[in-house]
């Protein structure tokens, strides 16, 4: 039996680490991986609540989160591929066309 409060704390910490990675890293691919870490943190708290409330629905929602993560990976990496055709490297600091 997993303590639900500890699970929520773990989820918050993992989400914070993923947020730091998303906001701080320079590499677009590693930014997308940080998003995956954040989605995993959400899944941890969903599973903890599912066990706490003895309800299967939390786990089903976590399955949907995994499906959306797969879709996000496909589209995001397609964008990275299109981007890397036009310029070398995948650093966010080179993408300044929208900046004024």
């Amino acid at each position: 039996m997993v303590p639900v409060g500890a699970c929520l704390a773990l989820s918050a910490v993992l989400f914070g680490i993923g947020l730091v990675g998303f906001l701080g890293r320079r590499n677009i691919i590693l930014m997308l991986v940080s998003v995956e870490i954040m989605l995993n943190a959400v899944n941890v708290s969903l599973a903890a609540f599912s066990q706490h409330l003895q309800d299967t629905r939390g786990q089903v929602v976590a399955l949907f989160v995994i499906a959306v993560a797969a879709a996000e990976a496909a589209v995001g990496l397609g964008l990275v591929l299109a981007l890397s055709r036009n310029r070398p490297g995948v650093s966010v600091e080179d993408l300044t066309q929208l900046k004024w």
Partner: protein
Amino acid sequence: MIFAWRAFTARQAPRKGAPYTHNPDGPWPGKQSQFRVMAMASLAGQITFYYLAAVSVASAIFAVTRRNPVHSMLWVLVLFLHVAGIFLLAGAEFLAAVQVIVYAGAILVFYLFFLMLLDLPAEIAGPRFGAHWPLGAGVGLAFAALAWYAHDPELGPAAERVASGGHSLGSLPAIGTTLFTQFVLPFEIASLILLAAIVGAVVVAKRKIGS
């Protein structure tokens, strides 16, 4: 473990000639040893949980801070496998299997393929974080602190464990029944999302013919 074994052997080998008596407390002879077994199992579960949580946090930090992107990816793999262990502890067996197969097996390998787009030596030589990383770190810390502050310590009592037709909470029959009765419309919409993502990825990444 020893208590469980003693209880088991005591049940398996009744005294010769002793008449069978129904024990309403379950298969174990006394209630006290049953509680002891449960307490020991719960202690082992807690130790396992704290191990998994500690390694998850450490590997997430390594994944975010390593200079070499391939090393980061491997730390993310460690993180995903330990999160699958946490799912197992929380009774979500099917979710743990999906985590290992889909996340660690498919999505992460996909990301590793895309790392081949990088000029790895130049990436390792360059800075890991953008110039704005203190702001990002501050936002992350603030978010984690807010989430910790906002969580209600009085969560209410844990719900009673219900046995629905002999299936445990996270087993495949329980998940499938919920998925195909109550969540059948979101399930179909998820398939549409995946289809749109496939088509969108091909359209975005396709090289234009003639240019």
